[in-house]
């Protein structure tokens, strides 16, 4: 433990390593928070659930905080529900088989730009005759625009931007623009700020008939991290990518390092045929192309991240690193304390695990820490090849999704930058700590 404390005081001399440790601690905290706040099943539901989960999100919207850097504020999504505030509903009887239901929605629109699109979701109750609806739109300057007259089935989704008649009525402008545009500035449409009123007048033909409507004015920015092409909230994938990346990197690094060390130690300790065999296997292993084999495993066997992890460890047991460890063990093997242990009759296993391997820890720890980012990036690389885990949302899969859907070509930079920056931060943090540890444990490096 004294040794651990000494390491810690040594690290303090490297500001970049202190930064790295802080970042790693933050990432671990974020990972723990994520796993607790969004349990696995909930994460899968949020990421794979379907339209019910993300139907009210706009498509491909940058995060909301980007508005801070914009002179022209982009709208956020406005959802008007029948039981919300600023909604009045009145019913009156016109005649014996005709009733009037009026829904009046008022909302404030403080943005400079127009919404992405506007959709009405009607739910109506009736037995034989469907209600008839007439929708009108009142702008802050008092103009009243007739939106449309429709007969509503039990469940009706009415997308304003697909209504050709409405577009004609708005002189060819898309409804999401035409309904908000300031008439004073015809050439360069600007959204008119203020309070809008939406009037839905329904004529029903049965006593128990009823009409309700949810209106979604899809914004152009959304949430903390924005949305992807399926309207999914990217925050979920960013959050869940953290524990996955950390677990994958750590497990792979520990798994590959310790198996390799054990093999190197066994080879050196027993020498002769065993050593020769291990050396030859290492050489053959060098010829096995890691990535193509992982691709074969991914295509033919399973895409599960943990199976791929197992294969990575399996393929690196006889990795090239064995040669380096072997050279060190060969020196250590001749030390007097080993001779002493042998003299009192320690078993081979005891000698290898308690006498040989501990001596290599100074070399091992920096290497282990430095190798973590490599594996984190390997996971992303596999995802980029389309071999990501089929259910888990990871950073690599976000990048792949973004790339495959042309995020770079279409200017959707947030989509690719967010996971990339997280990857970079995590990678750099481990690399900086590993770098400092390397200098602490290898004094020879400190001189130069």
């Amino acid at each position: 433990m004294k040794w651990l404390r000494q390491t810690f005081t040594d690290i303090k001399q490297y500001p970049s390593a202190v930064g790295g440790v802080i970042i790693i601690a933050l990432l671990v905290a974020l990972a723990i928070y994520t796993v607790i706040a969004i349990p696995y099943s909930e994460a899968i539901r949020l990421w794979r659930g379907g339209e019910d989960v993300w139907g009210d999100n706009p498509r491909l919207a940058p995060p909301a905080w980007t508005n801070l850097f914009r002179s022209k504020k982009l709208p956020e999504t406005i959802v008007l529900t029948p039981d919300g505030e600023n909604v009045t509903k009145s019913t009156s009887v016109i005649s014996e088989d005709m009733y009037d239901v009026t829904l009046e929605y008022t909302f404030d629109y403080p943005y400079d730009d127009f919404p992405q699109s506007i959709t009405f979701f009607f739910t109506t109750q009736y037995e034989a005759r469907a209600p008839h609806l007439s929708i009108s739109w009142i702008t802050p300057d008092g103009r009243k625009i007739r939106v449309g007259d429709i007969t509503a089935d039990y469940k009706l989704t009415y997308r304003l931007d697909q209504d050709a008649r409405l577009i004609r009525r708005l002189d060819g402008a898309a409804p999401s623009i035409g309904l908000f545009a300031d008439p004073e500035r015809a050439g360069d449409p600007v959204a008119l700020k203020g309070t809008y009123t939406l009037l839905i007048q329904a004529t029903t033909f049965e006593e128990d008939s009823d009409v309700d409507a949810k209106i979604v004015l899809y914004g152009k920015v959304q949430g903390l991290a924005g949305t992807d092409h399926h309207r999914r909230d990217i925050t979920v994938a960013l959050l869940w990518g953290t524990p996955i990346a950390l677990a994958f990197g750590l497990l792979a690094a520990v798994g590959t390092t310790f198996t390799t060390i054990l093999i190197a130690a066994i080879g050196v300790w027993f020498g002769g045929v065993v050593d020769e065999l291990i050396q030859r296997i290492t050489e053959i292993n060098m010829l096995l192309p890691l990535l193509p084999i992982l691709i074969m495993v991914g295509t033919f066997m399973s895409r599960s991240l943990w199976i791929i992890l197992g294969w990575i460890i399996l393929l690196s047991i006889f990795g090239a690193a064995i040669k380096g460890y072997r050279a060190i063990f060969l020196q250590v093997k001749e030390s007097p304390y080993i001779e002493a242990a042998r003299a009192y009759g320690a078993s081979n296993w005891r000698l290898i695990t308690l006498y040989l391997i501990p001596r290599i820890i100074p070399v091992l720890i920096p290497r282990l820490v430095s190798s973590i980012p490599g594996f984190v990036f390997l996971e992303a690389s596999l995802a980029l090849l389309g071999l990501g885990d089929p259910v888990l949302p990871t950073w690599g899969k976000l990048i792949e999704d973004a790339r495959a859907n042309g995020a770079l070509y279409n200017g959707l930079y947030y989509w690719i930058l967010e996971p990339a920056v997280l990857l970079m931060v995590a990678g750099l943090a481990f690399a900086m700590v590993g770098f400092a540890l390397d200098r602490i444990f290898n004094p020879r490096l400190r001189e130069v």
Partner: protein
Amino acid sequence: MSVESQPVQSAAGSPAQKNAPSSNQLLKLLRYTVLKLGALFIAVAIGIYLIVLIANMGGYVDQMIIGQARERISLQVSMDPELKQLPTEERLQMIDDLVAIEERRLGLDQPFLVRSFRFLWNALTLQLGRAQFMSSDSGSRLVKNIILERLAPTLLLMATSNLLVFFINLFFALFLSRHYGSFLDKLVISLSPISTAPAWFYGIFLILLFAAVLGWLPFGGMVAAPPPEQLGPYLLSVGRHLILPVLAWLISSFFGGVYGWRTFFLIFSMEDYVELARAKGLSDRQIERRYILQPTLPNIITNFALMLIWLWQGATILETMFNWPGLGRLLYQAVGLFDSPVIVGSAVIYAYLLALTVFLLDFIYALVDPRVRVGSGGAGR
């Protein structure tokens, strides 16, 4: 895994002491080469056999072959005008029978152990079969042709970037080791963690900046579409498309590589014999060339070869990122199409390329390092 950027400090060689007479040195070199080739061939055979075993995990190699046979037989039967009159069921029955005969002919009813050696033979002789869905640009369905066509672009991209990176790193590191402790030196040290991220990762940022925002360079591909007719503009176009991937490669391996080399040179320049040379009053340049570069040449070469080994795999995703029509992108497309013969074929080709690189390493090593040159047989490895 990450690109091995730190130089290997102790060369793989085992010391062999005797000095050989120069007269039969060539013969020794030849013997050494033949032995190396033999050993390497055995290693390749075992490696490819392992690949066959891995590929067969889900019985996919069998399915591949049976699927191909069925496709061919179905086509034969449906094209035969005499068989066209037969009712559908009889025709299907006939196809099934023929497939069963074909299975027997191909020996698929034999135990896997026997078959696996035939697969090995086919792979070793590069009889990689036919692709299920893909075809080469010249229209061939043979996996070998598809892969061969992609080798040249991969080689162009990787050779350009690696050679560039290697020599820039080396000379910049020498420069830094001379100006040890300067601001530039400290800057490179503090920036060295940047090299943890692979090249494709920087590719994202480069595409974003230079292609998407500034519009100076193309997003990807190898040549403009349509390709220019004359050779001059064609080469110019390829050059323009090369800039970003090569730059991505450079960024990802520059700082770490320079740091590693610089530390390596510094450790070497603290050796006693260098101190002695300095005391004798030799010029810096002479010391550098004779007392630092020459003894470290084997290590430099080892590193060069190790870099080549990593190169083949690092290219896969960089090519995908930049739509570069090379082996890596082929692999990406094959994964997307589930074209198993192409995937297995690529793995085999990669194994061959790695073996070739290892052989080249040993050979050059033998030319440069006098200790290895003399020690014939298995001593080098």
